[in-house]
């Protein structure tokens, strides 16, 4: 054999070649073991965590908002109820979408074609829960349950829904909620998509308290599984936790949501309802304070709105409705008690009287002659009546303009400003509600600033300006709440109270800043204003209640120059030109003592439009010491 032949034979020896195959095979399979080692042992923990993250999913448990109570513990103004939403999972009704949509159109009145289109849009993501209808009524719920067997893929999902129990009553105080938007979400870590956030009133101010803390549930889920909460039965939300295959989802860990803290308001809902009922058909405000503590018993404003509307509608409709409300010429979103200001008219005379008495300019016997007009330079100011010789008490009771023109002129604008500020006019009252208006008491500095573009003569303070301010005209504006705070001071012995709606805050009042002598005189004037029934009667006679010591002061604030409508009868005066009607009142001889301010926009006369409302309020408040819920029956309730 040649060496070459041997070599060839060796090379083609099948046994050797089989051995080569065996070696290669061993190498290949050893590679597999090495890679397994790498994956399972070296990086095993990383992959284990990845697998865990894969399957575990956090389901957020939304914290129910805190309850808002009324003044009495058993009165709930805002709570949460179980709302049932109708959802559809396209994958479960594949093939019969059309029939399902048509049936839903019959049962709950949605647009079947539109729903079919939406299902078509979600063709690629058939496990998505489509929201068909929010907040089913009980009738709809029963009919859905009844036809359950022909509605594959249609489910009822439950969630907590805010409810304003008395609807429109106190709506502006409670405020409203809507879903938090994207920008806010980034700034507020406590919130999650879809959370509701307070936008006005108590809901806004006490948002941090009411919000609560969302909980979560860590569940194990299927790759395509969307965790759903199903079941139309009100009850704990985590009871019916399944995914769309109807499989019970395994809960690994739960952190129960924390309810928001409840807030107890000082608002007496019956009184609030009564006040709103009194303002029915008008635009105006009624503020009722506890004169000693500053508790707001009622802050009625008309026209109002029902905060429930923001919760029931779908988001886009929500915005539409919100826009309508915001652009509403009636300004129904604003609580006129503190969110709007008005010229105070004769109500302001109380400030001038207190200031002059305290400064020692006048006393009980001071008398001015009222010929029915007042001349200063070339200008003449009128009085509504020629009162003749009139003294301090009567000037308050009969609201003599000329008396206060004289007093104001002597007092000077600085003193008026000082005392107005002390009594809380033109200053924030400090109420714990948002968007409070400050009002304005004109001063030389203010005029200089406000008319900076006019020539020197026109922006300089004139003696006539002081005359205007003295009777609460000119640029003077205050809020009804400020007027109520002022009235409270006169009732409670000269203490300025801070009004508030959250009982937790507790009363806060200044030391008495009005001397007893002054108070006594002003109170006598205000009593006479209400109590003097026989002619010449006081301007506040329509607020009189037999056997009650009611203090009162009317105000009739012109909104346009009197020259415009001098020749017109009252009926013919355009609505916008009519004077605002004011009445501030206080009750001395009952406990708790209350201070009331009534404002009727363009009500013509404080005496006839506002004073009777104050009388009703006072009568109602003291007639019932337990709330009269018959009044509340008139109020439309939330669903």
């Amino acid at each position, binding site marked *: 054999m040649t060496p070459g032949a041997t070599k060839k034979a060796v090379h083609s020896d099948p046994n050797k070649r089989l051995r080569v195959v065996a070696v290669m095979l061993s190498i290949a399979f050893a*590679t*597999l073991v090495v890679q*397994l080692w790498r994956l399972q042992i070296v990086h095993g923990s990383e992959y284990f965590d990845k*697998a865990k993250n894969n399957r575990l999913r956090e389901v957020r448990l939304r914290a129910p908002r805190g309850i808002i109570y009324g003044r009495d513990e058993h009165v709930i103004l805002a709570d949460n109820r179980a709302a049932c939403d109708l959802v559809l999972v396209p994958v479960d009704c594949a093939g019969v979408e059309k029939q399902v949509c048509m049936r839903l159109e019959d049962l709950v009145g949605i647009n079947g074609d539109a729903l079919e289109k939406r299902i078509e849009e979600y063709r690629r993501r058939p496990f998505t829960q489509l929201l068909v209808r929010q907040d089913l009524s009980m009738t709809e719920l029963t009919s859905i349950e009844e036809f359950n067997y022909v509605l594959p893929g249609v489910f009822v999902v439950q969630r907590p829904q805010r409810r304003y129990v008395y609807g429109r009553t106190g709506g502006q105080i409670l405020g409203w909620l809507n879903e938090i938007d994207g920008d806010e979400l980034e700034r507020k870590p406590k919130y999650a998509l879809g959370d509701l956030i307070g936008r006005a009133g108590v809901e806004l101010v006490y948002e941090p308290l009411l919000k609560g803390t969302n909980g979560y549930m860590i569940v194990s889920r299927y790759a395509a599984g969307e965790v759903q909460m199903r079941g139309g039965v009100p009850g704990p939300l985590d009871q019916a936790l399944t995914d769309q295959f109807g499989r019970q989802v395994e809960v690994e860990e739960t952190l129960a949501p924390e309810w928001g803290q409840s807030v107890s308001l000082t608002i007496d809902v019956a009184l609030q309802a009564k006040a709103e009922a009194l303002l029915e058909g008008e635009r105006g405000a009624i503020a009722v304070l506890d004169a000693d503590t500053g508790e707001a018993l009622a802050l009625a404003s008309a026209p109002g709105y029902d905060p429930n509307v923001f919760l029931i509608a779908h988001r886009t409709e929500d915005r539409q409705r919100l826009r309508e409300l915001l652009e509403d010429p009636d300004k129904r979103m604003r609580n006129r008690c503190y969110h709007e200001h008005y010229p105070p008219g004769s109500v302001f005379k109380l400030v001038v009287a207190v200031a002059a008495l305290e400064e020692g300019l006048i006393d009980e016997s001071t008398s001015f002659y009222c010929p029915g007009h007042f001349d200063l330079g070339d200008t003449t100011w009128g009085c509504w009546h020629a009162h003749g010789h009139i003294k301090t008490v009567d000037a308050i009771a009969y609201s003599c303009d000329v008396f206060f023109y004289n007093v104001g002129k002597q007092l000077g604008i600085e003193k008026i400003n000082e005392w107005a500020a002390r009594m809380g006019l033109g200053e924030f009252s400090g109420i714990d509600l948002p968007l409070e208006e400050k009002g304005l008491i004109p001063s030389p500095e203010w005029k200089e600033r406000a008319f900076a573009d006019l020539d020197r003569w026109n922006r300089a303070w004139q003696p006539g300006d002081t005359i205007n301010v003295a009777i609460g005209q000119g640029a003077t504006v205050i809020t009804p709440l400020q007027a109520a705070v002022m009235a409270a001071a006169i009732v409670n012995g000269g203490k300025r109270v801070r009004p508030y709606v959250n009982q937790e805050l507790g009363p806060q009042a200044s030391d008495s800043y009005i001397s007893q002598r002054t108070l006594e005189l002003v109170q006598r004037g205000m009593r006479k204003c209400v109590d003097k029934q026989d002619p010449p009667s006081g301007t506040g006679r329509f607020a009189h209640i037999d056997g009650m010591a009611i203090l009162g002061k009317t105000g009739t604030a012109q909104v346009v120059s009197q020259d415009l409508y001098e020749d017109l009868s009252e009926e013919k005066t355009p609505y916008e030109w009519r004077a605002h009607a004011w009445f501030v009142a206080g009750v001395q001889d009952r406990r708790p003592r209350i201070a009331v301010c009534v404002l009727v926009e363009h009500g013509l006369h404080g005496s006839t439009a506002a004073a009777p409302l104050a009388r009703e309020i006072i009568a109602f408040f003291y007639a019932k010491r337990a709330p009269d819920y018959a009044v509340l029956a008139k109020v439309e309730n939330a669903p």
Partner: protein
Amino acid sequence: MMKPVYDFDLRDARIRTFTVRNLGHLDWFIVGFVFSLAAIGLATLHSASMSGLQAAPRYDLRQAVWLCVGLIAAGAIICTDHRFMLSLAPLMYVGALALLTVVLILGIEARGGQSWLRLGPFRFQPSEVAKIALVYMLAWYFTKAGRRIRKLRFLLLAFAIAAMPCLFVVKQNDLGTALTFLPVVFAMLFVAGCRRRHLFLVALLGAVSLYAAWPHLKEHHRERVLAFIDPAREQPKGKDYRYHQIQSKITVGSGRMKGKGFGQGTQTHLNYLPEYHTDFIFSLLAEEGGFIGAALVVGLFMALLLRALALARTCPEPSGSLVIAGCVTVLAVHAFANIAITIGLMPVIGLPLPFLSYGGSFYLTTMMCVGAVLNAPIRKGYFTG
């Protein structure tokens, strides 16, 4: 020295085409490995059947039926004389081609490929049986060719033999199966004793033709390969070709050393990894059995295949070695490629794992391979031992 007389069984002296006596001459190591793997396979499938998905089919029970069918087929092959089997090779080959033609015309589509034939209640994949036919055909051909295989044209003819069923399978859109044919030819050619430089040439040609075929591949095949090469590659909208690969690695890796326990696999049972009862069953095994279970199975495969190769050397005739080499390659390619895919060493192409993946036709093929491996070394008409 004379062999002891009692080793000679007179009844074997007469060579029979078919005799159950062959069952007494099995290699019990191989039988042991096969039954171990089959048992692990059934257990894994039992776990797969426990999935929470509504009405998960009882894969384990169905697979047990196929195991019985496979055992009968393997037994039949074992009992048949090897040389007779070999003489049937051209018939098997033509028959397989005929079935593949039928499937192209009458086949039903499933899982993206038209490779199934409906036989009453059964669905049957002729391409699987074609593998066995090809092994026997090549063994037959190499035996006939003898040393002429060292000439290039005989070698090319061998490729032509393999190319025929391969083209049919490609036509059926079953790229994975088609790709297993090539290593089989390659390994058998090598064992048959062809020139090495010819093999290198062929390998080169294969690489060139793969490059040429690249643009004609289906998009999802291309994308999967590209995703494997470059995991950061931007995926087309709405599809992620990396999903299987990523999830499979997570599944395997999360098993760690001891695994999550029988029936406790989260990745698989919660459907993060689809196809966990077929092509990705090894992931399920590795997740629930951990490194211990996975390495055990890899080890069993290795032991089985190496033992089979060792048997190849004891074959009374060269054709037996060739058949064993072919069958070992079929099993090895499937086992290696499948596991390599699940652990991220190869791009995702659909290939089943012998003994574990659910699927009747392939189980049948696997058992027939085992039968052929056990059959080839049995000596008849010789002194045993």
